[in-house]
């Protein structure tokens, strides 16, 4: 059954770009999200839904108890503090704070990502920050894009995540543009790319819970709520886009840029699927 649904989803998505009206591949985001929840629940019937936002710790008790220890005095605090200072002190070239462009910090992260009906694009919080700066005429080398000022971007995102922590993830997908974005992201999730010919779903869905070398693969939900994440194996903060970029690269694919349409569609698909889970960023992962 499990395998049937999963391979049907993949086959129809792959064959038709998601357009085919297969029962196993509804184009309606809410129907498809339910299939994703069912997939997880069938493989791990004992994991309560609210734990899905723990990533691999939801299904790995040993790693989870280690993580619980790490969360007592979390390494993320320092990044949140730096990000808060940046958010409060930074001024756009017009002398105004970022809140003049984006709104207040409290609950801001919880309104992302969203699809703007006019341009049909997925808005990602990181990219909106960057665009606020660019539109205000900020010098190119001072913009907090991943290339020039990655740390500032990651720190501010950590602070903004903390200002929405505890809220419920509820990404909207009512408009036609949003539905299209969701289905583009879905296609990206199941698309096999690169020399290794692997898709996100190969590792994080069909083989979720198994090991790739020593790496325990997390399941198909819980990809987004906890970002940015401090990776203790690397000693640094990872935004969701940096993480996705790395996973695409590891399949032997030249990855699309961070905040490209492709990765934003993927972010939107994964974020919508995480609806109902508590926002728990910034968090800690291996």
């Amino acid at each position, binding site marked *: 059954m499990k395998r049937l649904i999963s391979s049907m989803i993949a086959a129809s998505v792959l064959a038709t770009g998601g357009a085919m009206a297969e029962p196993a591949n509804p184009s309606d985001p809410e129907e498809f999200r339910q299939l994703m929840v069912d997939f997880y629940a069938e493989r791990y019937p004992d994991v309560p839904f609210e734990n899905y936002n723990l990533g691999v710790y939801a299904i790995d008790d040993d790693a989870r108890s280690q993580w619980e220890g790490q969360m007592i005095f979390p390494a993320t605090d320092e990044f949140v503090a730096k990000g808060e200072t940046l958010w409060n002190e930074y001024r756009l070239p017009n002398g105004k704070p970022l809140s003049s462009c984006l709104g207040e910090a409290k609950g801001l992260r919880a309104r992302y990502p969203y699809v703007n009906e006019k341009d049909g694009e997925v808005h990602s919080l990181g990219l909106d920050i960057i665009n606020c700066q660019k539109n205000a005429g900020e010098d190119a080398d001072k913009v907090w894009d991943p290339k020039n000022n990655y740390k500032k971007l990651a720190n501010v995102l950590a602070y903004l995540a903390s200002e929405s922590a505890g809220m419920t993830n509820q990404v909207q997908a009512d408009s036609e543009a949003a539905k299209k974005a969701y289905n583009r992201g879905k296609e990206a999730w199941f698309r096999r790319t690169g020399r290794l010919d692997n898709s996100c779903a190969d590792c994080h869905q069909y083989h979720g819970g198994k090991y790739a*070398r*020593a790496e325990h693969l997390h399941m198909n939900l819980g990809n987004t709520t906890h970002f940015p994440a401090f990776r203790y194996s690397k000693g640094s903060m990872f935004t969701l886009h940096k993480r996705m970029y790395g996973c695409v690269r*590891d399949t032997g694919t030249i990855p699309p840029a961070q905040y490209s349409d492709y990765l934003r569609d993927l972010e939107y698909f994964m974020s919508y699927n995480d609806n109902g889970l508590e926002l728990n960023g910034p968090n800690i992962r291996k």
Partner: protein
Amino acid sequence: MKKFTSVITTAGTAALLAAGMSFSGAAAAQQNDGLSESAKEGKELAFGRSGGNCLACHQIVGGNLAGNIGPALIAMKARYPDREELTGVLRDPRDKFGAQTIMPPFGAHKILTEDEIEKIVDYLYTL
């Protein structure tokens, strides 16, 4: 072999699938007695992260921190008496297992050369 399941969850090493990470030859150096030159090279390719990286997904005797995405590679002669069939799995596993397989098409995508695949097959037949 017995150790795999217990070792894996507690390992502190950051072993990513990422290509380019260097591979310590320590594990491969053990138990090489009796292997032909070609099988030895095949073993290195199978264990190394940038060559075959078979350990990412398969348990193989003597390999540390193996994954379990695919089946353990054991008793290969008994299970693949036809060499061409085994070579075919490495060249393009999609032919045997269908388009959905997660195993990379090592030959078709030029991850390994034909010569390297033959060496790995020599090694697999010692398992």
